[in-house]
């Protein structure tokens, strides 16, 4: 059991996502600090991947910018080690299976523990394949975050029963990216989750406005926003931190309000 539960102990949580190294790691660090200052409860840090198959165009773009800028797994580990000196809220890595696997799963996951990462979000590791990393996650006290999707139906209970840290509820079909409307019956999904576990659940994919964030926070324990944050970085580059802070503040207010 990691530090992640602390993110949910003061009521509804807001979880912003930032791609490490977009456009450079100094900017990422400043954005994280601004997000924390403005009320973020948990930070999801993306390790870029060349072919992010679960992402829409906005986060794909961030992955390309970051890799072009020269970040790699080792540099990101060092960056988190530094960041941990002044950031105490829980942080998780979001990346793709091959980034972890190619580094050596045990080496990657033990390094996560060492530098103060609390969990791993890996969209191409479904329930059936979690044995790939779960034994190491257990050994080093890292939560492997489970996804539940609008299509999960008969799988929700099975996934919820073994979930750790928090459950990532995917709001809509498709890839990441802002949507004007979210039509999935999320109340129904959350109800089944709650019948099967005490692990908190956060909703992500497609959320961008304070109104949407408020509505989602009403249903679940937390809200995850990626593309709308990353879009700010795409627009303002190195000048993003202040804009990120302002956006996080607005969403946090909507989430708790």
């Amino acid at each position, binding site marked *: 059991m990691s530090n992640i539960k602390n993110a949910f102990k003061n009521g509804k949580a807001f979880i912003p996502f930032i791609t490490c190294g977009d456009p450079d790691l100094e900017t990422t660090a400043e954005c994280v600090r601004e997000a924390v200052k403005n009320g973020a409860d948990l930070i999801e840090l993306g390790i870029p991947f060349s072919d992010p198959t679960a992402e829409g165009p906005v986060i794909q773009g961030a992955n390309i910018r970051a890799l072009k800028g020269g970040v790699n797994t080792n540099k990101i580990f060092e960056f988190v080690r530094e960041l941990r000196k002044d950031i105490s809220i829980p942080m998780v890595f979001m990346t793709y*299976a091959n980034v972890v696997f190619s580094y050596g799963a045990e080496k990657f996951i033990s390094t996560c523990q060492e530098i103060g990462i609390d969990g791993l979000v890996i969209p191409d590791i479904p329930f059936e394949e979690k044995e790939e990393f779960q034994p190491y996650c257990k050994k080093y006290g890292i939560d492997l975050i489970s996804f539940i999707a609008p299509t*999960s139906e008969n799988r929700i209970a099975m996934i919820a029963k073994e979930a750790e840290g928090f459950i990532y509820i*995917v709001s809509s079909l498709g890839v990441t990216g802002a949507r004007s409307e979210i039509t999935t019956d999320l109340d129904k999904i959350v109800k089944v989750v709650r019948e099967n576990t005490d692990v908190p659940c956060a909703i992500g994919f497609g959320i961008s406005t304070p109104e949407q964030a408020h509505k989602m926070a009403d249903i679940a324990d937390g809200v995850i926003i990626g593309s709308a944050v990353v879009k700010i970085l795409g627009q303002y580059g190195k000048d993003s931190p202040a804009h990120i802070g302002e956006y996080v503040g607005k969403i946090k207010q909507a989430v708790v309000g």
Partner: protein
Amino acid sequence: MTNPKGRFGVHGGQYIPETLMNAVNELEEAYNFYKNDEGFNRELNELFNEYANRPSRLYYAEKMTKDLGGAKIYLKREDLNHTGAHKINNVLGQALLAKKMGKTRLIAETGAGQHGVATATAAALMGMECVVFMGEEDTKRQALNVYRMKLLGSDVIPVKTGTATLKDAVSEAMREWTSRISDTHYCLGSVMGPHPFPTIVRDFQSVISKEIKSQILEKEGRLPDVVMACVGGGSNAIGTFYHFIEDKDVRLIGCEAAGRGIDTFETAATISTGKLGIFHGMKSYFCQDEFGQIAPVYSISAGLDYPGVGPEHAYLYDIGRAEYVAITDDEAVNAFEYLSRTEGIIPAIESAHAVAHAVKIAPEMDKDKIIVVTISGRGDKDCAAIARYRGVEIYE
């Protein structure tokens, strides 16, 4: 050879987003039912024979054999299938399965365009909607096939992300599938991706080796010494190998695309240069850097220009049952021209990779030995590109 979770040794598996899990489970269930269903198999066989022109010929390449002066060479003529390649075998099977499952829309990725054309063809035949994703780079290399797909009533979406080639087309088709599942079947074109695709595609392509076996027994009264085929994802190769896997005296050789050479970065030879990884739903060998970023591969052949290889090939390599060799652009182009000149058969540039290896090994083998080379597709689509490779500026 597949275990319940779709593993071939350590390879295979289902490394896909949760959103798609019920879709692949539903597909697996449907396939397990229909693969033994008499009505389904009757319908599929009729499509194979009456529509796709099966069985394809096993042709004795006498001039080539004499010219090379060694082993007897037979060509398995998948290029004579309707739509001009082996791809139709898999597509007719999957489209029929999708229809039985109540799907009304097919999506597909394509590299050279052969799988896209085959999918568009099956969609037209069965009255289904069809959308094909194709790397923008490939839409330029294979403009004629883009037109063919549109003529057949499909939408073709040029994919601009990444290297704008086959791997990006696969990524985009997967993204599309996660956004629309209920009426849509992803008609994957090779023995790759998450379980059950590598098994389904292999089974539909295994008709190639089933026919080779009975045809060679009829012509020669014995099994061949070598069967070989080109390998990108590996569907025509696994189809060529499958019914010979248990015949340990038959050598199985897969010919990968070395591009400008396996000692350069401009290569797509996955088994020669890749390492174990997880991508596009499967564990297998992939061309990648030290941090697991997928490498931008290269080959003159759009159909072999893929950074991974199907999990069953990775397994056959691990256990030493199949050999994999790398053939450069130059060797493939020479073989493309050689077969055209010698036998009057213009092979697809993909298939020319296998022909090139036959040209290398046949002279070293005794005259009583037999090689079967699968000509997976015809080369009309490649003529303009090969002409340009030789410095002749023609455009379609």
